[in-house]
């Protein structure tokens, strides 16, 4: 039986997705990228293979995506994460119009047309403010686990503001709020609001379609998604595992395209 794989090696995490010839997801893996992006890609791929009980030989074609896409050894070809997120989001939500992806060091809004084809996109400028890394730094400053930030934020009682979207300045704002004795829950909400505000600008730039989907690691933060939905005036849907959408898109491209 023939399988296809997509490997997405980003700045913070590496993902691999295996699909069968009928486009069903057979397995996936998410690992931290660490300091060796090539190894991270290979490890994610092997972990996914192990879960599915498959060998490399069962996979007919591998495509890569993400910042280290050119360094993935197993990949026959690569696609940008913009195309892959569009493709992957379209797989789960065929009516999707606008995709918001916030990864480790990029945030983007993608307007898609038929078949998940990219019509327009906008990305953060050089600065990585409002990305996954931003959230990670704030979690560090607050000494709160990354995946607990949204629970805390949603229980916030007091409205606080973090005015800077620059990671460095925002971190010092967080530190000064801590020193004022503000509750971590309230600071978490302020952090989420800062990310949502910055992202909403990107979304407006490409255009808000009726159906919005959010992908990437930050989509796991329910507080950010909730505030962003309010800011753009539409409900934002999130796939069950938003982090693998890029790798899934790459796997779908691998299945569709003939190798070079």
């Amino acid at each position, binding site marked *: 039986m023939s399988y296809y794989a997509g490997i997405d090696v980003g700045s913070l995490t590496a993902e691999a997705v295996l699909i069968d010839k009928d486009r069903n997801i057979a397995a996936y893996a998410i690992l931290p990228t660490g300091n060796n992006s090539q190894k991270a890609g290979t490890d994610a791929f092997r972990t996914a293979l192990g879960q599915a009980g498959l060998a490399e030989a069962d996979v007919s074609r591998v495509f890569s995506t993400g*910042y280290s896409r050119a360094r993935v050894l197993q990949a026959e070809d690569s*696609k*940008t*994460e*913009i*195309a892959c997120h569009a493709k992957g989001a379209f797989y789960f939500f065929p009516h999707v119009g606008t995709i918001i992806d916030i990864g480790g060091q*990029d945030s983007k809004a993608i307007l898609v047309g038929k078949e998940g*084809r*990219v*019509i*327009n*996109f906008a*990305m953060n*400028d*050089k600065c990585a403010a409002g990305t996954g890394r931003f959230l990670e730094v704030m979690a560090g400053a607050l000494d709160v686990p990354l995946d607990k930030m949204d629970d805390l934020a949603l229980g916030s009682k007091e409205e606080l503001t973090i005015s800077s979207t620059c990671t460095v300045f925002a971190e010092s704002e967080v530190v000064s709020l801590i020193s004022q004795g503000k509750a971590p829950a309230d600071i978490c909400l302020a952090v989420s609001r800062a990310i949502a505000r910055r992202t909403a600008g990107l979304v407006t*730039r490409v255009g808000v379609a009726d159906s919005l989907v959010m992908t990437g690691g930050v989509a796991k933060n329910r507080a950010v998604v909730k505030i962003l939905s309010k800011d753009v005036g539409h409900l934002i849907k999130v796939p069950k595992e938003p982090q693998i959408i890029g790798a899934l898109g790459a796997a779908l491209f691998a299945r569709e395209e003939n190798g070079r």
Partner: protein
Amino acid sequence: MTEFKAFSKMKELMTNYYIEAKTTKEKPIAWITSGAPVEFLFAMDIIPIYPENYAAMCAANHQSIELMEAAEAAGFSQDICAYARTDFGAAMTQGGPAGGLPPPHFLLCSTNICKTVIKWYEVLARNYNVPLFIVDTPFLHNGLTKDLIDYTVTQFIALESFLGNFLGRPFDRDRLTKVLSLSREAADYWKKILYLGKTIPSPFNSLDSFIHLGPIVTLRGTRECVDYYKLLYEEVAERAQKKIGSISEERYRVLWDNLPIWFKMRRLERFFEEKKCTLVVTTYANSWGGLSNFQANEMSDPYELFAASYLNVYINWGFENRIKYLSQLIDDFSLTGFIMHSNRSCKPYSVGMYCLQGEVSKLTGKPGVIIEADQNDPRVYSDAQVETRLEAFIESMEPVS
């Protein structure tokens, strides 16, 4: 870059120009902005020196960082133009190719390319203790008008007396007319070369135009400059006729807006070649070709003509005209999309870019992308970020049919 036989001729021309400037005992040296009316200088046998051109050379030779750091250490903010910082640093350290520029006897600055060059040139005037002449060219919010031309002409007349007084001999108007005609002839060849880019595949791409830009910026108004572009024109025309493209396979044809990223020329060249994407036309290189739109004839007043041509440069236009021009280029050159370089150094070129992108896309139906970079400062550039955006943009274009 595409190989042209004329290239060695250009190297010779530029080398001789710098050697003469560095060694001359008789001719005065004037430092001048890239869009200033250099013809007045050639008419009086003054050698023009272009700090902008030299700064670009520093960056292309990967020498700009240390020079900018020297300027920053002396107190110049990282937010000012990287060309200015590079030149300040070169003057302070005697660094950069050929050990710096020959010092100026006076300065000529025109604001048609940037309103902040005045501050740059005021610093130079203080540092070298030399006179500064400013040609104030107002911004064309709503196109060229008679008032704006008249206002600029008065300054040219003043420039003549300034030069006459400075040199102690009367300004030579007959000579100016001859220089002007040579300048227009060179600009005309340059424009014809750039417009051969309409051929599919394009025989001469924008990276080529950045490389071959030197003489039209520095030597327009000389016979050598005309001869050089005639030679290059013939070579490019032959390639166009034989349908030889500047890259091996051309699937995408795009416009480049704003200055080159001088320190990334080679890497970007490889990148675009690999993606089968030709940078066909640029608003930047076109600026010098635009001077040929104002050809001298017996009927015209050369001063008004001068004023009109130097006011009417892309970067001195209001948004409506920029939008029209960009859209026109996209249609005329059969382009599949456009790239806008949001240049940290060059605010007048980059302001309003997101609006421009939206309007031009709406008018032409072609996708555009904005990349954040700098003409001369590698410290504010990220390969991965820029290339990801460019790649995604290329993926979203429909290839040439």
